[in-house]
């Protein structure tokens, strides 16, 4: 009858409730176990990093670890970056460095001018069947092909020496021009006239930033591409300027021949300031 039916429904509801509780308990257990797995994985990674570090220390290498008890993955990464930077520093100091590759050698030529590090240039050489340049990052206006034709096959040391001279000189000339433009822009009329190799510079200038006129004209020719000082210097002055400038022009010309362009400017500019 109706009551029996009701009893049956009640029993079914009870069963369903029990089942639901069971599933919920299962899910909770699963979640807890998953969290535990994460924890253990994290611990495993940390221990791995620790072991790694220990091994490296045993090989006698320097390690920078802030907390020897708990070297995190972060600390290990930082240590690796530092040792890489240190090695790069060593390479910079020597100027030319190389590494063997699958098919040859890759060279890096670092440039510098009077203590300031400038750009680096790379050459990827193939050694078989003969030495040839595979890829490089040397600017197109540096006569790389000519230098290679002369020395690459016969005297590779000379090749790198000559190329390094060209690149260092170019970097030095460009650096001087940039420094002049940057620090003495008020003493130069407009912008410096230059070219890709920075081997011809022409500009009108004065000796004090306060002056509005530019009585001097300088024309510097760098005939030797391996040299960062000019081979010819012409300093002229405007026709309507006082004759006393002739002597100053000669003095400037001498300075430009002997020292870095921006240093020469510093020399006669500061003298001018003293007079003021």
């Amino acid at each position: 009858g109706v009551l029996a039916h009701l009893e049956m429904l009640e029993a079914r509801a009870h069963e369903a409730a029990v089942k639901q509780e069971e599933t919920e308990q299962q899910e909770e257990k699963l979640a807890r176990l998953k969290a535990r797995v994460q924890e253990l994985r994290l611990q495993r990674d940390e221990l791995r990093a620790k072991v790694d570090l220990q091994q490296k220390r045993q090989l006698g290498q320097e390690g920078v670890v802030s907390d020897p008890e708990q070297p995190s993955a972060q600390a290990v990464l930082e240590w690796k970056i530092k040792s890489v930077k240190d090695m790069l520093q060593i390479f910079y100091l020597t100027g030319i460095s190389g590494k063997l590759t699958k098919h040859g050698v890759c060279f890096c030529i670092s440039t510098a001018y009077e203590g300031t590090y400038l750009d680096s240039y790379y050459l990827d050489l193939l050694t078989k069947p003969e030495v040839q340049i595979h890829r490089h990052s040397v600017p197109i206006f540096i006569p790389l092909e000519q230098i290679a034709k002369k020395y690459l096959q016969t005297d590779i040391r000379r090749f790198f020496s000559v190329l390094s001279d060209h690149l260092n000189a170019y970097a030095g000339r460009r650096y001087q021009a940039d420094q002049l433009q940057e620090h003495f822009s008020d003493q130069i009329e407009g912008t410096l006239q230059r070219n890709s190799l920075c081997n011809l510079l022409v500009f009108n200038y004065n000796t004090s930033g306060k002056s509005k006129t530019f009585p001097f004209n300088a024309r510097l020719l760098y005939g030797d591409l391996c040299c960062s000082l000019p081979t010819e210097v012409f300093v002229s002055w405007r026709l309507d300027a006082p004759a006393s400038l002739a002597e100053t022009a000669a003095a400037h010309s001498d300075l430009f021949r002997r020292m870095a362009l921006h240093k020469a400017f510093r020399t006669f500019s500061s003298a001018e300031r003293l007079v003021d």
Partner: protein
Amino acid sequence: MDETVAEYIRRTVLKIPRNEIKTMLQKWGFLSEAQLQTINFGQIKENISQDVVQLCEENSADIKQAAVLDIIYSHIYPDKRVWHVYQMNKTGEETAFFDLMDFKKKFKRRLRSALKNVTINFREYEDNAIWIRIAWGTPYTKPNQYKTSYVVYHSQTPYVFISASVLKSNLPLLCQALVVAANYHDIREMELRGHSLNSLKDIVFKRYSQLTKLSVFFFFFSSLLFSPASDLRIVQENKNEKERIQSVNREVFGDGPQPKLEFAQYKLETMFRSDPKMDVLDKREPFRCLVKFSSPHLLESLKSLAPAGMADAPLSPLLTCIPQKARNYFKIREKKAFFPGSFVSP
């Protein structure tokens, strides 16, 4: 101020995207900062351009100054033009003392001696790029400012980038003027064309060579770098093949971004090779065919073909030689030798 100059300035300003107009006018420097303040750059471009023309009227602008605004626009949006690459040749290794003033003087003199009605403007940029704008006229008409050629030249390099877009008859004159001004002997057009000026420069100046500081840094010290832990539960199918493809791709294309080219064209004049029994062509004549590959970024898409599984690695050298050979127009003929094949003509 000349009517034509006013109209030219008006049309040039209209080309500029609205939010760039103020910066470009500042770069131009013809209108003072005070004058620029009086313009409402929020209004519609039609009105902005009218205001600009009005101020230029006050300053009595001439065509030379208007041309400078056009150069500035073209320098910021060079990819709107198609650039052709030319190569100059000279014999002898004398150290080139490239004198900019001398170059400009010689160029103008050469051009003007042949054609009186030309507008010539120069503008130099920090990367040693010299931009030349030439508006061509005829012996009887004034220069047409809307039909301009642009030349981009980096001193002490043999390459010139020309966007002619005009009467082909003026091109030889332009080339001659360049050769004379730059102290070279002759000039020829290379089979290299594209919209992206910087990419064309990258290709001929070999600046794409992937030997950037960063890539060499990683190359020298890759063994020391931190490698991410991989989950051992994931198994890579065809792992060896995938790695081979990656390795071959890296050999051919390198790690860096590829120069941007929009097309590569191959003119085939080769014999049709078929089963002799099929006898498709009874005449032994070369089969003429033109194959053109187009893409917003051709080299990147070629680079992704093998990893995407759409082509076998390594790709045909006809496709991969494009940056090294500095060309994207090819003529392929039959090799006249004892083994069949085809060769790419110079």
